[in-house]
């Protein structure tokens, strides 16, 4: 074989390898991740305040995800549209008012201790407007927890016999839901994970597979900047 032909073949092999590696790396950077969402910041008395509105749904649906039957958190943007993102940018040293609409039914906490709210103002949440310092662990549907802040909030589930339950997300407020509100504070800048502690992933052993271990569903980050 002539040198020119050999050179061509080797160059083609190198180019093919480069393309494959590029595809591989780019596939990896988006695998099981979530795009980031910057929560809008208000200034109240010179201090940053944020309203974070979330919903938890029993099935995220085919429009928002390739896994339509997976449970998920969704965040509401300024236009009122529910986005499938679980990485949120929050300001540092700020007050965060959180509202979570839970459309999912209860499946119970693995560790009942996590039913007690911690790491939030007054260690109390309001459920549908009424204050509460903890729910029955068997009624827990999901939790919102930031372990680095020792923050745990357990969300009560929609009653099993409730009418007008939400099927696929996005869920509107006319469907059966529980509303939970609480407030916490961010500190110095950093990158903190949050997760749900109710193992409700149907079909996986211990309920911990699938959406419970995937960022974008029941896990995410808060980027405090």
């Amino acid at each position: 074989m002539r040198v020119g032909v050999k050179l061509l073949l080797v160059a083609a092999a190198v180019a093919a390898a480069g393309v494959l590696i590029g595809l591989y790396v780019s596939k990896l950077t988006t695998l099981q991740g979530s795009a980031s969402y910057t929560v809008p910041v208000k200034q109240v008395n010179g201090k940053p305040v944020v309203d974070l509105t979330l919903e938890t749904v029993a099935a995220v649906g085919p429009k928002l995800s390739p896994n339509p039957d997976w449970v998920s958190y969704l965040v509401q943007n300024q236009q009122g549209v529910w986005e499938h993102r679980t990485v949120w940018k929050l300001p540092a040293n700020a007050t965060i008012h959180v509202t979570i609409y839970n459309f999912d039914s209860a499946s119970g906490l693995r560790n009942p201790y996590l039913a007690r709210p911690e790491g939030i103002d007054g260690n109390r949440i309001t459920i549908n407007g009424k204050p509460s310092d903890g729910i029955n662990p068997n009624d827990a549907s999901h939790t919102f927890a930031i372990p680095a802040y020792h923050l745990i909030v357990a969300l009560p589930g929609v009653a099993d016999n409730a009418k007008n339950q939400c099927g696929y997300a996005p869920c509107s407020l006319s469907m059966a839901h529980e509303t939970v509100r609480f407030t916490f504070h961010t500190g110095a800048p950093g990158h903190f994970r949050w997760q749900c502690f109710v193992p409700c992933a149907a079909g996986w052993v211990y309920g911990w597979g699938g959406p419970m271990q995937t960022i974008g569903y029941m896990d995410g980050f808060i980027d405090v900047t």
Partner: protein
Amino acid sequence: MSAIAVAVRPPVVRRLLGFNLLTGVLLGIGGWYVGWFGAHAVVGPSLAYFAAIDFNELSLVLAYLGGVTGFLIGLGFLNYPVKRLLGYPPSLREKETEGWGRYFSLCTDHKVVGIQYLWGIGLFFFIGGLNAMLIRFELLRPDHQAFPAGTYLTLVGVHGSMMMGMMTSGILGPFANYLVPIMIGARRMAFPRIEAFTFWLLMAAGAILQTTIFWGGFPTGWTGYEPLNVEGYQGMDCYILFFALVGISMTLLGLNMIVTIVTMRAPGLTWTRLPIFVWGVLSTAILMALAAPVLVATLSMALLDRVVQTNFFIPSQGGSSYLYENLFWVFGHPEVYILALPGFAIVLELLPVFARKPLWGYRLAVAGLLGVSLLSWFVWQHHIFVSGINGDLRPFYMLSTELISIPTGFTFICGMMTLWRGNIRYTTPMLFCLAWFFNFLLGGLSGVFLSDVPSDVTTHGSFFSMAHFHYTIMGGLVFTFFAAIYYWVPKMTGVQLSERLGKIHFWWMFLAFNSTFMPLFAIGFLGQPRRVVTYPKSLQFLNDWVSVSAFVLGLSLLYFLVTFVYQLVFVKKPAEANPWGSRSIEFRLPSPVPVHNFDRIPVFSSDPYGYGEGPAPSPIPVGAPAGRD
């Protein structure tokens, strides 16, 4: 049945669509769909939990198995059995003696299989290395998130699994397949078709592992611990199938080696005249044949736990996570000696040539190899000292693990005394062998810390343990892998490799390797666990040092690849028959070795280490006509 090799070559079209890699891939794709839709049609509706997880797991497993089966059929592995069953004479395609098409199909020439292995394992080694570069890139900053946290775990898992699965056959695949028949004076392996089968099965397995990224990856690392294994995504099945197929390939490779070495030695080749490389291959092959089936069994149970919801390893349902740990490490510990022993064998084989002295303490060296092989079955619980195993067992395993360093030490003393008062030439293969002493010393001594339970309490599951096994496996096996390449590739291909380019490769790789892995001892001792994507800020400087060194190491390997291809494809300087002045039988043959190895079967009268004892008669009779296949 005439044994004359095929001289007629069919037309190109028939050759292209004959049984080869192309038909293998096509039938593999077909087999995939057969498995996929078959499972959907037959089982899909009956297992309700598939609907809950949005996936028919059984389909994925059967699709992959169908794909592998189709691939192997397409390559032609069923041709011989089917033809014989039906009473037809078998095709002689697999006995072709020339043409580069042999390298892309089923070929029963052990030399072709050896070269196929060299390139195949090399390919997956570089893919594993790419993953390592990505891992180190992610670890540049504690908060840096180039890859999402779950993907990082997949990277770690693919890197570890690829390396462990591929490098177990790293020496036996390319070099034992090529050289053992020659060294024992035979013309072929005992089971040539099985030999080719192990290669193509390994390639199929590697491809399956790479496709895990299309199914979400897997979160367990290369050890696949339960019950996390059962919690994994569909990509977990790719890992399980990969390793199970690797296990089958290993078992057959080991069996083939054992039968060949035991039954096909030429006249005069008694056990005390056997080259030490063959002894090393034998002790490794025994471990492969006995340990790999345990892996296959364990992974089959894990697969059943995942797909049909059995409970072998789920504690709350009556199983035990300890069962998995113990079964895995019963395989896992012999596995690491499968990786280390060929390195010992190569060092002991090459040192006499470059020190111009006989191998010192031949029987002690053999005792060392076999001793390591035997003792490796009695140490496995040192991987799970703090798991809560029975406290009475810990002193026992501490003792057995410390004891295994005694036969390992035999290799050191035999190598050192071979060098003593010799006439040492620093060629590239010799440099890699000398680096083995340095690397394996550090690896072995760190093993002393890990085998000591009080010390292990801090170092288990930390980067110290990572540094230990990278020093023994990469510093031990991979360095000797390159020694073997520089030493034997001229013989295998007939192309001379440049000493100057090789020495640049050596020094670049040796310095970068130590710069990468030596700080890991400190990082582990200072409290960083394995497989973590974030670490304390105080350790950032060390992690950055390691990452940059790792990139330099990666570049050294790329440099090797470039110069290797350049010399083999473009320069093609012809190699002499015996560039190193070795007394071993393969260097009495021309380069590359002719198709039938020997014109007549040799007769041995001594071992190949008689340096300083005067000229030895060649075992190969000259002037005789070509014999039968």
